[in-house]
């Protein structure tokens, strides 16, 4: 089965339009005036009478009038197009995490599913299936078996399973209730009888009210309750943010010790516990029919006040002036410009907490998705580490296959992969956007929208930044390839270009920062055992035109130079075929087109001479 749904254009067009009236190469036409056309090479169609067109999916939609979900079924049933070929642009929602709720016997009673963009759904097991209704299910404290295993341990009550897991990772006993703020229920109380409890509210009004509710419920039965307001929490921040900001267990313990014991129930501004609880049940019952939990708060958009705006923290950089801590960036440029060298080093710097050519970085794990192959990355990393003097391990992980960002299952698998690392992933590099959108139109705003939605989901899931590597258009001066929706959606756009043969990284768009001067790099070939690889060296002055080559061009020239040396004469001629073969063997990651482009530049610049099937180094070289 072809990897591109466009390959099915002929089959689908013939199904709806019948036998074509004219065939011209890869173009088919229908109708007496031949007003309908299908371009099999591009996988697109156009109806000149109706003035509409599109891809395979659009053609199916044109005739079937179905929703995208329905189209998937049509594609499968009528044309046998299944699996990766089925477009899954909607819903742009991804399962991020699954939280299990066990009872006192260790039996799974229900789960909370977190989706990105943020949405929670609850479900309970029913044989081999799941029921997305919580009717009749008794609520349980999250991580109940842990609580029961340590009956004397102080229990930290937080808002959200993620926070409870973060504290459990530190060796503390922590729990929460499902459903978020305002969802503490009476049946939970019995598990806290005689326990020491510490309540850690989130830094917002719903968080404060939730803490009030928990304390009011537990005060009559708990042995002791302390309410700990963590200092320095950002607006809407929680214990995870606090820990990520560099605070540790000892500091938390100190604050807990200092916090006064709660003696009286909080002054309820709005609801009594009973009212609150009954209201929650009512809401929960209503929502259970759809399986979707909605906060008890009014269903309105949150508005920020001027004071909140002023109190917003300054921009946090993952890489100073280049990429924000939770930003979406794109690094684009022509093939062979050195984009991947820069992106790989950027990821390595983040993983090691080392400055990126003088720019400060925040340390965290980094995942590099090498959609275009892993082949040369090993030696690139070795050369980089040796050149920088980096030793030992670092949390830089390579994912050696493309992840289809337009497919829900693939994105969710990536999220699971991130979760499985069990550490904060500060940066995900997607190399390349084209590979992540394989089978989808880069020119389509809808495809790019799906890609951006998936990127946002991954970013929110890991709490870090995402950098996509993308190609420039045919006319590099006109920006990146494909839909301009990508440039509009990203926070940062970095343009990689050749400036007299040096790599130049210019900030084309920086939503949250100042424009800064482009960074310029020289390509330096570094020695390895039996091999070499390119390492970037930053240069301060604008480079001169002479001598400089792109990495791809440099490697092409090196291959020829070695062949000529092997031919026993410095300016000996070798066959063009031998050069191509050596170049291909030395640069397996480069596409045939990119290798050809690199060789052409060498020829155009007069560095090599090609004549009569032979090639040699020019005397000036």
């Amino acid at each position, binding site marked *: 089965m072809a990897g591109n749904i466009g390959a099915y254009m002929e089959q689908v067009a013939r199904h709806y339009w019948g036998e074509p009236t004219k065939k011209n190469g890869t173009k088919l036409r229908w109708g007496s005036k031949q007003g309908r056309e299908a371009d099999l090479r591009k996988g697109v169609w156009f109806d000149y009478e109706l003035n509409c067109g599109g891809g395979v999916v659009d053609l199916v939609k044109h005739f079937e009038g179905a929703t995208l979900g329905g189209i998937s079924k049509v594609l499968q049933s009528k044309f046998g197009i299944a699996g990766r070929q089925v477009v899954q642009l909607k819903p742009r929602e991804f399962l991020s995490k699954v939280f299990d709720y066990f009872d006192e016997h260790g039996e799974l009673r229900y789960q909370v599913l977190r989706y990105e963009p943020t949405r929670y759904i609850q479900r309970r097991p029913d044989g081999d299936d799941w029921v997305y209704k919580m009717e009749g299910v008794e609520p349980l404290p999250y991580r109940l078996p842990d609580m029961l295993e340590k009956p004397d341990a102080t229990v930290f009550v937080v808002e959200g399973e993620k926070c409870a897991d973060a504290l459990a990772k530190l060796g503390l006993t922590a729990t929460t209730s499902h459903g978020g703020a305002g969802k503490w229920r009476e049946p939970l109380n019995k598990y806290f009888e005689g326990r020491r409890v510490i309540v850690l509210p989130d830094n917002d009004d719903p968080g404060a009210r939730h803490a009030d509710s928990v304390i009011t419920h537990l005060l009559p039965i708990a042995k002791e309750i302390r309410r700990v307001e963590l200092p320095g929490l950002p607006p809407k921040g929680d214990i995870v943010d606090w820990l990520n900001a560099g605070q540790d267990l000892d500091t938390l313990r100190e604050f807990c010790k200092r916090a006064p014991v709660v003696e009286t129930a909080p002054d309820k501004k709005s609801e009594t516990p009973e009212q609150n609880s009954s209201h929650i049940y009512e809401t929960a019952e209503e929502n259970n029919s759809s399986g979707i939990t909605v906060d008890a708060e009014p269903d309105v958009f949150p508005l920020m006040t001027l004071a909140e705006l002023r109190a917003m923290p300054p921009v946090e950089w993952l890489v100073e002036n280049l990429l924000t801590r939770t930003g979406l960036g794109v690094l684009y440029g022509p093939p062979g410009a050195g984009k991947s060298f820069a992106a790989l080093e950027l990821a390595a710097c983040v993983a090691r907490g080392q400055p990126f050519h003088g720019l400060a970085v925040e340390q965290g794990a980094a995942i590099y998705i090498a959609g275009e192959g892993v082949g040369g990355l090993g030696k690139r990393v070795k050369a980089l580490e040796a050149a920088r*003097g980096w030793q030992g391990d670092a949390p830089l992980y390579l994912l050696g296959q493309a992840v289809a960002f337009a497919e829900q299952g693939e994105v969710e698998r990536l999220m699971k992969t991130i979760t499985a690392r069990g550490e904060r992933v500060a940066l995900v590099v997607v190399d390349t956007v084209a590979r992540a959108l394989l089978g989808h139109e880069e020119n389509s705003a809808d495809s790019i929208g799906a890609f951006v939605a998936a990127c946002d989901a991954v970013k929110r899931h890991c709490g870090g930044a995402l950098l996509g590597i993308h190609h420039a258009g045919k006319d590099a001066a006109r920006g990146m390839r494909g839909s301009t929706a990508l440039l509009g959606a990203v926070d940062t756009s970095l343009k990689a270009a050749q400036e007299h043969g040096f790599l130049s990284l210019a900030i084309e768009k920086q939503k949250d920062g100042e424009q800064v001067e482009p960074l310029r790099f020289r390509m330096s*070939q570094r020695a*390895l*055992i*039996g*091999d070499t690889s390119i390492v970037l060296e930053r240069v301060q002055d604008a480079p001169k035109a002479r001598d400089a080559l792109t990495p791809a061009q440099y490697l092409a020239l090196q291959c020829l130079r070695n062949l000529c040396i092997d031919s026993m004469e410095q300016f000996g001629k070798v066959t063009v075929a031998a050069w191509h073969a050596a170049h291909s063997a030395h640069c397996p990651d480069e596409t045939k087109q990119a290798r050809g482009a690199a060789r052409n530049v060498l020829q155009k610049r007069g560095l090599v001479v090609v004549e009569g099937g032979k090639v040699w180094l020019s005397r000036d070289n």
Partner: protein
Amino acid sequence: MGLGFSTESKSSGDIIPIVKWDAKAGDMIRVDREQDASGAWIKNEEEISFPCKFVADLDAIEVGWLSFDSGAPDFRMVRIGEEMPERPSAGHKNAFRLRIYNKEMGLREFSHSAKTVLRKMDELHNQFEAERGANAGKAPVIEIEGTEPVRINTPQGELRFKVPNWKIAAWVDKPDEMSGAPAPAADVPVDMPASEEDLF
């Protein structure tokens, strides 16, 4: 120095004796030079039996180009990660140079340019990089347990070579003999064992 000639004399202490790897036979050979009664230099070669262990100065391994075209080895070496020198001639092949030490043979220099041996050295160096963080300030002890056969198909038929089956077996304090920068290579003619480097 008006003519640009070097008048510095090199003491024999600058010359580190070598061990070499015969990729055809799969032998590791120590090479020593001695003067006989007439004052002529003679070369003694002695096979090292496996298993054997030695400390390797992998932290200071050098890589680059090596040629024996002129009889004497011509090294153009740098440390890993430094700028690769230009290849001087067709006779210069990718190579490594490494100092090794054990009590029996003392400090030795081990170099090779065969791709099969380079690959094995690269693997060994990967293990070194992976473990060095947990063994700061120490040097790896390499154990050669035997040899591994390597078969290469060529237009002339299949050729067989043997490469060292080695691993890092332990980490020890760096011997005093290895302190200081790597010495320059012995500029004496050395017979190289058969090499398959041109076969790829």
